[in-house]
């Protein structure tokens, strides 16, 4: 009985992994299609679509915008989210649980609802500069990722470490920088990556706040697919995918090593 159950579970795990990964493999294959229309089986391979990415209309400004927004919102979220997480994790804050739930709640809200709410909210207070509204909106998107990860990380953190550093001659801010930040490096890395990715590929919130001159990369990509559905977009998607895989792989190595170095046995 137990053996059968294990076989079924294993089969399910493999099937699900294939189900999740198959579309990614298809898009990677399509990006090397020699013809403008992707068709299986492939009759050859070509990298010409990769060369066309940079010539897409408005590609560079959109990429730059997305990177700016993602990096900035991640940086701000890391600082603010960590400070908030400290307040919550130390537990002396009355209603810390409520604050924790509130900080993480945007994760559970549908993006469309969030987008509409932000658009209406910003309009109501007369805040309409597209770049700035995008940044603030992406803070709402990224903060929950940072807050969630940092609350978890800090709940494992022994604040006596800071006291130890202080008695050894460190000022309080110095102790935070020399002890708390490195000890929490894995959490920072994970929080930063998820926050960056969440911002970089966000569509449903951004679409409400973008205008003709301020379009993030996901919005621009959807526009391309409507205008000219050729494998250039598949090539671009494959590049983003590759970048993400490298980022995750590298950080897993780094975090993995850090984990081994001490924070958990």
């Amino acid at each position, binding site marked *: 009985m137990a053996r059968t159950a294990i076989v079924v579970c294993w089969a399910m795990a493999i099937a699900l992994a294939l189900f999740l990964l198959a579309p990614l493999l298809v898009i990677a294959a399509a990006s090397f299609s020699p013809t403008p229309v992707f068709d299986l089986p492939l009759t050859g391979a070509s990298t010409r679509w990769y060369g066309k990415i940079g010539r897409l209309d408005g590609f560079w400004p959109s990429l730059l915008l997305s990177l700016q927004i993602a990096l900035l919102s991640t940086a701000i979220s890391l600082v603010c989210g960590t400070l908030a997480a400290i307040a919550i994790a130390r537990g002396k804050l009355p209603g810390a649980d409520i604050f924790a739930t509130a900080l993480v709640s945007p994760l559970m809200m549908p993006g469309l609802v969030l987008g509409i709410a932000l658009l209406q909210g910003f309009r109501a207070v007369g805040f309409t500069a597209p770049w700035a509204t995008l940044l603030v909106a992406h803070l709402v998107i990224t903060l929950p990722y940072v807050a969630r990860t940092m609350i978890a990380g800090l709940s494992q953190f022994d604040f006596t470490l800071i006291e130890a550093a*202080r008695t050894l001659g460190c000022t309080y801010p110095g102790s935070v920088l020399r002890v708390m930040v490195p000890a929490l490096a894995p959490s920072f890395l994970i929080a930063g990556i998820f926050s960056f990715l969440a911002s970089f590929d966000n569509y449903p919130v951004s679409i409400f706040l973008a205008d003709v001159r301020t379009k993030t990369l996901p919005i621009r990509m959807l526009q391309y697919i409507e205008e000219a559905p050729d494998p250039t977009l598949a090539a671009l998607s494959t590049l983003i995918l590759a970048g993400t895989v490298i980022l995750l792989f590298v950080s897993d190595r780094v975090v993995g090593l850090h984990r081994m170095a001490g924070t958990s046995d």
Partner: protein
Amino acid sequence: MSEAIPHLVVRSVSKKYGPTTILDHIDLTVRRGELVTLLGPSGCGKTTLLRAIAGLAQPDTGKVELAGRDITNVPPHKRNVGVVFQSYALFPHLTVAGNVAFGLKVRGAAKREIDAAVERALSLVKLGHLGGRRISALSGGQQQRVALARAIAVEPDVLLFDEALSALDRKLREEMQVELRRLLQEVKATAIFVTHDQDEALTMSDRVAVMNKGRIEQLAEPRELYLRPASLFALNFVGLSTRISGTVLAADNGKVDVETGVGRLSALGNFQAGSSVIVAARPEQLRISEQGEANSAAGRVRSVVFQGSRTLVEVDAGAGESLLAELSGRDGAVPRVHDEIRLSWPVAETFAFPMEAQV
């Protein structure tokens, strides 16, 4: 000369958290090179006193002086204290050597100087070969040593131990107690231990401060603390004892006669006739044999507990009172449960404490 100079002086330090008094006008003077233990149950204020000395808790009133300097308002990083925490608080992102070097690095010492100090500190705690290890790769006992090495490496004016041995298992703890005492005497460190473990206090310290409810009940050498407890609390907290309640019949020159449920007993103490008191004696003073000028009481043996070098005999003396005797191997025949026996003990080793101080 310098041996006698007060090295650490705590003057009338008080601390309240909200309505709760944690420290109630504490006075404590520690000489250079002295090992002093703050002993007491949880909540007695011992850890808060230690933190006040380390600068991690700010007293509401009073002063703290260290090595001739008023450090009451000096932040912890300028106090030159070394603290060994209960959790060890080792930095997980640094190696063993990195942890030990931390304090010196922060102080901006030269690399050669740091390396030498790290090597010295690690060899002192017998971990010279593990400098490159990660903290997570060490056992509890080794981590404890690293924490000690880290605190010693900066050559602090005083070493503070906050329940530093309590996370170790019993055997290791007992070994560390002896080793730590020897090591601290070797480097001529002034140290304060906080513990709730009486054995640790008696083993490690030159003097023990028994703390209760934010006050120091007694500050004495371990031997005196055991033989001449100053209060019922100190008697109860350190060592075992027989305690019998009674009423003073007559008082005479430091000695009282007390009427108790087990008969009339004599004890040391100054009380007025009619006072309610607790009469107490240490278990090793109680003998089955007759003794000269002695108190005695009879009863039925309730339990006999063999503990290796000694045997504890509990006797039900009637009237709700019980007697506790510790018989060493030399004492010959050990009674059995239900035996009727009579125990006697010297008046000179019998104490009396006021009843209302009972805890």
